[in-house]
């Protein structure tokens, strides 16, 4: 009880007596505190895990780069030459038993660096082959490991190849642009003792019209110049795709689709509309003949192993067929409808796949939308990044670096 007889304090400030805080308030406070702490911890943990994953991926990339020759061979050569080096009758020469593999190490290295375009006879069998150049996608060390492995396994334990051998061959190849002109040139330049080779007949390539070159380089005659987005050699940049070496019918069909609105692109529509059909035909033909080295590098943090699995084997559990089952071995395309996808700019590939998936959502049952709808975001990035590591489609011409 309070004491009523005390004089009243004039300066008294009212106050509440100290009361016990109700238990529920403690409960709520404790619950919220725990919730907050755990949320903070989980967020921090997310960053930690993501960092560790990135580290793992970086390590995997390093491992990939340092993979032994056997793994490099499986990843880079076996889709055409087959895992056992037997080749494909009528299409891809065998490595097993090939005199080129057993010869001087520089032969294998120089073929890897330049690629081959034209007829070749290997162990009595005739091929009319197009092998890509690996110069732009593999470094000296990797090429040395592949060459060593190929020679040891298929060339009766022939001697090893060192990275400095590759560097020397690279310097030599700089003075010899373009692919080997069939077995004939290899025989003449490197191996006079090779079996007789069929003669190389240069395919007639019309020199591009000056007005087309002006269009490509300066945009005179309609639209922004092609090169301002697609690069001087059609190598692509960001999500402006690589267009060098794509088949002429495919490129022409795309230009017409952009102009007609069947394919939408804000950058391409005004240009394609302003081009005359004859210009479209000439441009398609010009770019289809460019043998430009790859300028694509993985950029989307995609898992390259997953991308490789999808490209080579697909994913049967998700109903995804292998990319290469339609786009051809090594993604070199199957004319006219299936474009080359090797060495494509990853941002373009992933964006295009996402676009196809959108079309599927809008009800399209066409082939690519159906397939792309089953790819998730991580798969799209994985495929795009993997394709960016492949050598570009071999075309018969030398890179036109001298042209400007």
């Amino acid at each position, binding site marked *: 009880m309070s004491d009523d007889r005390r004089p009243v304090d004039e300066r008294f400030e009212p106050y509440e007596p100290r009361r016990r805080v109700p238990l529920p308030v403690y409960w709520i406070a404790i619950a919220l505190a725990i919730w907050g702490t755990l949320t903070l911890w989980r967020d921090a943990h997310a960053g930690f895990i993501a960092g560790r994953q990135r580290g793992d991926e970086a390590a995997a990339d390093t491992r990939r780069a340092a993979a032994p020759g056997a793994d490099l061979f499986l990843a880079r050569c076996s889709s055409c030459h087959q895992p056992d080096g037997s080749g494909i009758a009528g299409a891809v020469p065998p490595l097993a038993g090939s005199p080129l593999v057993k010869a001087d190490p520089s032969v294998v290295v120089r073929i890897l660096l330049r690629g081959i375009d034209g007829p070749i006879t290997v162990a009595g069998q005739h091929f009319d082959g197009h092998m890509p150049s690996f110069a732009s996608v593999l470094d000296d060390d990797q090429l040395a490991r592949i060459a060593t492995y190929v020679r040891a396994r298929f060339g009766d334990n022939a001697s090893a190849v060192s990275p400095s051998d590759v560097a020397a061959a690279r310097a030599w190849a700089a003075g010899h642009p373009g692919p080997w002109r069939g077995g004939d040139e290899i025989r003449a330049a490197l191996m006079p003792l090779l079996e007789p080779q069929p003669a190389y007949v240069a395919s007639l390539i019309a020199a591009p019209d000056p007005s087309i070159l002006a269009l490509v380089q300066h945009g005179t005659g309609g639209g922004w110049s092609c090169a301002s987005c697609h690069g001087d050699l059609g190598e692509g940049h960001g999500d402006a795709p690589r267009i060098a070496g794509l088949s002429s019918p495919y490129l022409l069909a795309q230009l017409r689709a952009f102009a007609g609105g069947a394919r939408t692109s804000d950058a391409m529509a005004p240009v394609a509309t302003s081009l005359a059909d004859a210009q479209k035909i000439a441009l398609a033909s010009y770019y289809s003949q460019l043998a430009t080295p790859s300028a694509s590098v993985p950029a*989307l943090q995609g898992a390259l192993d997953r991308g490789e699995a999808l490209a080579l084997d697909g994913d049967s559990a998700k109903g995804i067929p292998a990319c290469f089952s339609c786009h051809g071995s090594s993604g070199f395309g199957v004319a006219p409808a299936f474009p080359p996808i090797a060495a494509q700019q990853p941002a373009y590939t992933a964006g295009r796949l996402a676009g196809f998936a959108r079309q599927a959502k809008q009800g399209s049952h066409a082939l690519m939308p159906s397939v792309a709808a089953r790819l998730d975001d991580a798969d799209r990035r994985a495929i795009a990044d993997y394709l960016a590591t492949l050598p570009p489609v071999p075309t018969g011409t030398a890179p036109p670096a001298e042209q400007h």
Partner: protein
Amino acid sequence: MNRSLPLIILAMAILAFATTLLVIVPKFQIGHEPAPAGLHPYTAQQQRGRDQYVALGCVYCHSQQPRTPDQAPDAERGWGRASVAADYAYDSPHLMGTMRTGPDLMNVGARLPSMGWQLSHLYQPRAISPWSIMPSYPFLFEVKDKAAPGDTVVWLPAKSAPPGKVVVAKPEAIDLAAYLIALDRTYPVPSTAIRDDGYAKHGAGR
């Protein structure tokens, strides 16, 4: 007021806590991040373009901060990898932006490297994308009867070109386009670079 001292102490403690977490710790985290090897300081022209970017208020509609794949599909939109702290080494103040009325511009130079495209687009965005809601910037250009030597003529589709005249870019437009083309952070960054991994559960799905 009763117990004013505890109240003041508590308020100061909260302020100190926030300052530590929001200012001091981040300073220690990112203050020593070196600029990536692939990133170059802005040239004088690009810096002038950057000033134009600020003056025209581009930042109110365009962010410069692509997110990680598990926060937004920015990589597939072609906006590039998620930005890291070091990407902003030469940006003072940064222009990260918060609104995405238009697309992210962190890598617009990689995406649309054509000076011609940028100029046409600045003059009249709807010449290129009929549905675009971006304002046009005709005051960065001059409409002339005939281009003088040295003028940068802007190509426009027939429907948008002023009949019988040519559109010539003023230096401001060229500066701004040069700045936009310089926005290219496609170089690789180390996996340890500091970045925002967002709210992704345990970072899965990356």
